[in-house]
């Protein structure tokens, strides 16, 4: 295998006196499907925010696709984030007043890509998650599982190196959870790198790798 997608080395993150992450080192190779589990307050979201370039480590080094991110300026981090990372949130974060297609197309609004063919690319992404039949619907008409699949389609726009999912099934019932997990399986089969944060065993057990986090430190299982 070539360069790791993620290479964390001795990453610390503290909020004043609170040490949210203590010396975290980890590697995620391209094509990995990895779950990070841990109780509430253990530092999962803090880790995900750093991995997603939404937050900076207090110290340590973070290479994304071989690029050292700690020294990058805000604007460069923003561009890197837009290009390399697809986010999937627990609460979907779909814009209620836009159609499904428009929500997916939003992922390209801040990129360099030209507008031409944007809708086709959105439909393509929706095909990967099996939601083309809802292309011009309002998100309000969709079930939770369908909404999450649309959100995943949005994250897939632009072919990111990494899918970062924060409790992606936290708002879903078991049937919809199953559908989303199946989707992850098929995306993984396509070669996508997926990192899922969860506290549900059902979710973490599907991942190829599981890492436990406790009090800001990682323990591989």
């Amino acid at each position, binding site marked *: 295998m070539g360069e790791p997608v993620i290479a964390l080395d001795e990453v610390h993150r503290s909020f004043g006196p609170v040490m949210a992450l203590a010396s975290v080192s980890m590697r995620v190779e391209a094509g990995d499907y990895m779950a990070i589990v841990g109780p509430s307050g253990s530092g999962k979201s803090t880790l995900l*925010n750093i991995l*997603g370039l*939404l*937050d900076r480590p207090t110290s340590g080094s973070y290479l994304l696709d071989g690029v050292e991110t700690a020294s990058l300026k*805000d*604007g460069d981090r*923003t*561009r890197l*984030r*837009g*290009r390399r990372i697809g*986010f999937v*949130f627990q*609460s979907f*974060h779909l*814009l*209620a*007043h*836009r159609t499904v297609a*428009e929500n997916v197309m*939003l*992922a390209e*609004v*801040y*990129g360099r890509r030209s*507008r031409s063919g944007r809708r086709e690319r959105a439909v393509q992404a929706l095909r990967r998650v099996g939601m083309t039949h809802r292309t011009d619907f309002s998100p309000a008409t969709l079930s939770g599982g369908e909404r999450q699949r649309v959100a995943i389609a*949005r994250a897939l726009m632009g072919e990111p190196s990494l899918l970062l999912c924060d409790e992606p099934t936290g708002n879903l019932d078991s049937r919809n959870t199953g559908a989303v997990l199946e989707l992850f399986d098929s995306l993984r089969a396509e070669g996508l790198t997926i990192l899922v944060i969860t506290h549900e065993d059902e979710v973490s057990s599907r991942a190829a790798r599981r890492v436990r986090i406790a009090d800001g430190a990682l323990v591989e299982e």
Partner: protein
Amino acid sequence: MGPRDLWEEALAGMLARPVRSALTTLGTVLGIGTLVITLGIAATAGNQIVGRFDALTATSVIVETPEDRVGWNDVAGLARLNGVESATALAQSEKSSNQSVTANAVIDPTRVSGQTLAVVAAGPDLPRTVKGRILSGRFYDGGHSARRDRVVVLGADAAQMLGITDVRHAPAVFIAGRAYTVLGILGGFQRETSLATAVLIPPALGPEFGLRSVTRVLISTRLGAAELIARQAPLMLDPRGGAGELRVIAPPSPTRAKDGVQEDVNGLFLILGLVSLVVGAVGIANVTLVTVMERINEIGLRRALGAGRRHIAYQFLTESGFIGLIGGIVGACLGIGVVVAVSAVKTWTPVLDLRLALVSPLAGALVGLLAGLYPALRAARMEPVEALR
């Protein structure tokens, strides 16, 4: 992010809350509307008052001269001045204004056939200068005066009082017992209407009534020349003497009348309009701030999707600027409508500076942009981690 993407995102943001967006424009609508109404009504009313200085008043200059100052021939030079259409000298005194005039030599003691009328010596140009109409016969000319012909022309009302309706048979009138032939009847005076009750005599006959020199000069000017002529006429009539001794009666300057009106109206209402505009701006700022707070999650999502801080700021600025622009357009339309309606009711001619129609939307957009500045900065400064929580 291209301009089209920016515009589409901003438009979608506004359309997501259409009622709020519409209400937000109200402040700007009121502010711009008030300003347009103020400026429009001021211009319209100002123009209206200028309009009341009809052409007749605006082209009339009168010079009053002390006795023995201006000779009859001095007036001829006036008529040559550029801007003068015609000029006529008059002579009239208190004594000449109360002359007993009869239409018949035979004094019938049983009838009161005599009238007390004013005798006025006037140059032969009088009909033109007062824009009168010869109802019968003709006016005397320079020849009559030169030959000292004993002729008169009656003002229309004077003729009626004396029972003279036409002059075909050369009727005579008797003034202070002396006979004069009536050459014509002059009516339709548009200025110096008091001459309608006068007996007009050629200058040469003036001394018979104690009228030795010119007492008044009537000047009819071209439109717009009155001010200039009012300054030149005294110098022309009396180059030697202090011009101050001649009293000039000129129409008030129309431009000054206009300014006076506009200043009155504008002062208060302009302040009112600006205050409403500021209130409108505060309204936009307020609502945009509330909107920013409500859309924190959306801001976080956009940042996660690769939006930089400036993209977030641009979007909120575009939204507030556009809301201001719409407010400006609607305000200008309403304002223009009110000006037209008020003009219609008052039967005025609405006067609107077309530039207002262009400047108003721009002013509205500027107000919106300024008002959106603070909320946009707040939105841009938000940390994506916080915004997504």
